[in-house]
């Protein structure tokens, strides 16, 4: 049983961003953006993780490989981590991943942001800003490969 889901293509290309948000701060910040009705473009889909330190570099590479135009990793501000200093581990991993992506010219498609539970506006601004940047960069250059 293999499902082929038809891709509903929209007119014109719009960025497609995957955001890893930590449960305690940045996911809550995204929630607050919603509660406050801060509008931002529908270019981002949030994947909740308990801590930004859960994000494996391979997740980011995989998302880009699968065609994501940008990947955002968002965690608590340094010092605010629900798990004491998980975000510091995340910072090391994400920065290293960005350095690796630099070799491929994709480093601008990865962002690490600290967004607190009270920064709903900031969440929407980050998404808007990242979307604009991705628009400037254009579509993810990965070629679609027939399996």
């Amino acid at each position, binding site marked *: 049983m293999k499902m082929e889901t038809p891709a509903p293509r929209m007119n014109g290309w719009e960025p497609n961003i995957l955001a890893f948000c930590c449960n305690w701060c940045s996911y809550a910040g995204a929630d607050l953006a919603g509660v406050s*009705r801060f509008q931002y473009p529908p270019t981002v*889909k949030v994947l909740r993780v*308990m801590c930004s330190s859960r994000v494996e570099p391979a997740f980011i590479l995989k998302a880009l490989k699968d065609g994501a135009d940008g990947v955002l990793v968002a965690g608590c501000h340094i*010092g605010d981590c629900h798990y004491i200093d*998980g975000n510091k*581990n995340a910072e090391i991993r994400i920065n290293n991943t960005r350095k690796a992506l630099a070799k491929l010219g994709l480093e601008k498609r990865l962002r690490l942001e600290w967004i607190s539970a*009270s920064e709903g506006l900031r969440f929407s601004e980050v998404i808007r800003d990242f979307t604009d940047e991705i628009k400037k960069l254009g579509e993810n250059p990965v070629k679609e490969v027939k399996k």
Partner: protein
Amino acid sequence: MKGSVAVVGGGIAGIQASLDLADSGYKTYLIESKPSIGGVMSQLDKTFPTNDCAMCILSPKLVETGRHPNIELLGYSDVKSITGKAGDFKVKLIKKARYVDETKCTGCGTCTEKCPSKVPDEYNAEMSKRKSIYIPFAQAIPRVATIDAAHCLYLTKGKCGVCKKVCGPKAVDYEQKDKEIELNVGSVVLAIGFKPFDPSILKNYRFDHPDVITSLQFERLLSASGPTQGHVTKQSDGKVPKNIAFIQCIGSRNPRINRKHCSSVCCMYATKESIIAKEHDQELDITIFHIDIRAYGKNFEEFYSRAQKEYGIKYVNSRPPEVVVNPDNTLSLQYEDFTTGDLITMNYDMVVLSIGLDPADSARALAESSGILLDDFGNIATSIENPVETSVPGIYICGVAQGPKDIPDTVAQASAAASKAAALLCGERGTLIRERKFPDEKKLSPEPRIGVFVCHCGINIGSVVNVPDVVEYAKTLPGVTHAREMLYACSSDSQSTIKDAIARNDLNRVVVASCTPRTHEPLFQNTCREAGLNPYLFELANIREHCSWVHMKEKERATEKAKAIVQMAVAKSALFQPLYKQKVPLINRAIVLGAGVAGMTAAIDIANNGYHVTLIEKEKEPGGMLRDMTELYDGKKPADVLRDLIRKVSENRNIKFLNEAKLIKVEGYLGNFKGIVNNRGKEISVDFGVAVIATGARNLEPSGLFNYGKDPRIITQAQLEKMLGTGVSANTITMIQCVGARNKEREYCGRICCVDAVKNAIRMKKANISTNVYVLYRDMRTYGVTENLYEKARDLGVLFIRYDEERPPKVQGGSVVVHDIMLNEDIEIASDLVVLSTPLVAGENEEINQLFKIPLDKNKFFLEAHPKLRPVDFATDGVFLCGSAQAPKLIDEAISQASAAASRACTILSREFIETEGAISIVNEARCIGCGTCVAVCPYNAPSLYDVTVKVEEVTYSTKKSKINPAGCKGCGSCAAACPAGAITAQHFSSKEIGEAIDAFDKGVRSISIEKQIVEVMV
């Protein structure tokens, strides 16, 4: 006796007390007069001295309180009276009409959006408007709407009625009435907080001018969720201010208006607010006008110092008497420059009044109705040795209602009050709580059968996202065997529908596409459990906060995004496996290290809660530093207090006291520690479930400072304290404060040295009024109610001379030369005694931190789990902290902390077993290579390496392997992201589960292959 407690006040103190009591097995009623719990802390932007986001740390506590099965939240209710006696109180309260049925309201917010009536918003300190039907703030608990009856058009004029019309679940009820309720409880904890001082009383500070605002208003201006989204702007013209003045002690340290107390927190919050404002706008010029800067707490002095050095915030020791409103409506302040004597006039764009903490109105009312005594300041009266006990046995007090204090001291007292209430009722523990029963879990068919429920949330989702379209799309997704829409997925009839659908369609995974899991996941998880599904087979797809509410004008694209969100949730859920919280047995015994005041108090409290305690003291005699003290600051004799404590320890059959003993080895974890104690050369093994560290601190010997040790006339404050026991005769005595503290080597403030100095100065004067007593100081830090000692000392003629850090006094024999910065002259004081006030320094903490693997701060004091909300916990579960081992503190504070540590310990000891988190990380032993990477990344010491002999076919070798202690793992998943061998699985957030969601996120780019999943199941 009743196994229940009423907690009055739902601020951080009431929340902490309730959680501790509920966790210890007592039915807890939390009564809050506002529509939501959270108190003043919910209004704060950040917290000093770490600048943690206040809401980030508070919100999880709100949610936990709201969903705790043993806590009954009585929001929007006022206590009228408390009668009865310890063990059997009647609490009368009025549950005010919300005009909204709490059981029906889903908190969707449609009513608020449509309500036409706008009123000043208290949450934003009246700097913005809210609606007449409202939810006070985004994270409010309970999340239900309340109608402000004073402003509602329908209730006041009989017109409008819009909210009732738009309310989908029909929750609005204009006929609702106030309801009187009487609770019968065993004990009462008062956590009624404070009232921010109203500065309009002080007319000269011109609070009527829009650019003169209170510190609480400024806090809201800084907050990203505030009226200006965190942009500091002038209320008069909306422009960005260029310079701001803070005026301290507005409503504090002012006997003229009957505010004799220091409010304890204003110096630090002004510093914090200044730093944050500077972080927002580096050009901003900020001046804080103060009397003394009271940076007395842990890391406060360092914070104060950073504010000056790194942020360039100016501190001026002078108090402007008024705010002058100039003819052009600008503001200016005039003040005396102490160093030059000049009067300086400065214009400021904005003036922030650092308002103090007044007793809450309800304090006096409760005192009158319930016979609880108040102190001179209008706080609920307590004593040094019983800091959380009111004059009525069985009624306890915590937080600012007992006296001004910061959040950690408040939280510690809250736990302390809980400990006392729990001890009183310990015979009734567990009698009034009930565990929720769920049916057995049904057997899962091997292939995923996913049910998708897409919520309209009235019009919140449905008006933007095409819900039927999303449902149709969901039906096409692999593994989905049932999909339907719902008007309100969270309403009670929808829960029945979901349960029914699970049964009829034999669903084994459930995805609800509605709102945020942070508030609604537990609800749906319970629904799944009621239908025989493991709660970890559930996933929420957030298409409201993350979709319909943020893409309101892009309906088509929002619908497409909603489909993608659902697809990700479906893909991930297909791999979900049932997870279980493991039950690990525990040893219901404690150890307490150190038998000073803190250690003995902790031991007594734990013992009074019914648990066995081993109290371990390295010295022969218990008592610690109290043994060398000769008077407490309220005049009591320490020997009496000590005798009483020792009697309680020796009489308590639950306490085993080991003197001349030292813990030398510990292994194990929360609930199951094994220790070895060396008791006079003999090794005794002690098994325990929790440990309390109360090893205290010691006085700094100021060798080399101010010629200490070279002349018998130069002594320390601790030595003077001891000498005063028998009497000291001296014509002139000079005390020097901050000796060996607040300097480069030891940056912190000693906290208690000012109180000690003032206390002993008073004793000298009382013994002989003609004795000349000088106190050379940098800032007098007699915070809170100890301000009255400072006042009394001045009344008695003690002379206080301020010196500057850069020009410290010089001591030569009995001669003290001090440069008086007010006079700008050197003064010589011929003294019979020179007393050096030195701070407490950390004791031998390095041995203990190794034993338990608990961290120390840079001054070698123990580092608590969180400086604000977990002041007596360690990040390592099952180990607690109290007294001066954490940082210097006064005896009453140490006692509060000790009871708090006992309370925290009892939340564990009261359990029959330790329940682990469900979604924790696990190690695949065969893949583990024992490299220890996981041990290095885990902040909780959950993974540990153990020795193992591996036999793989023909080869046998010794190695380490990692095991994750399920009781220690918090499920962050960091170790899984670090393990080079891929041996660790972060359950529920595994690489496979997340990988499937990543594959699904860009729907259409790759379809989900279901075969792969079936292979997984077979492997």
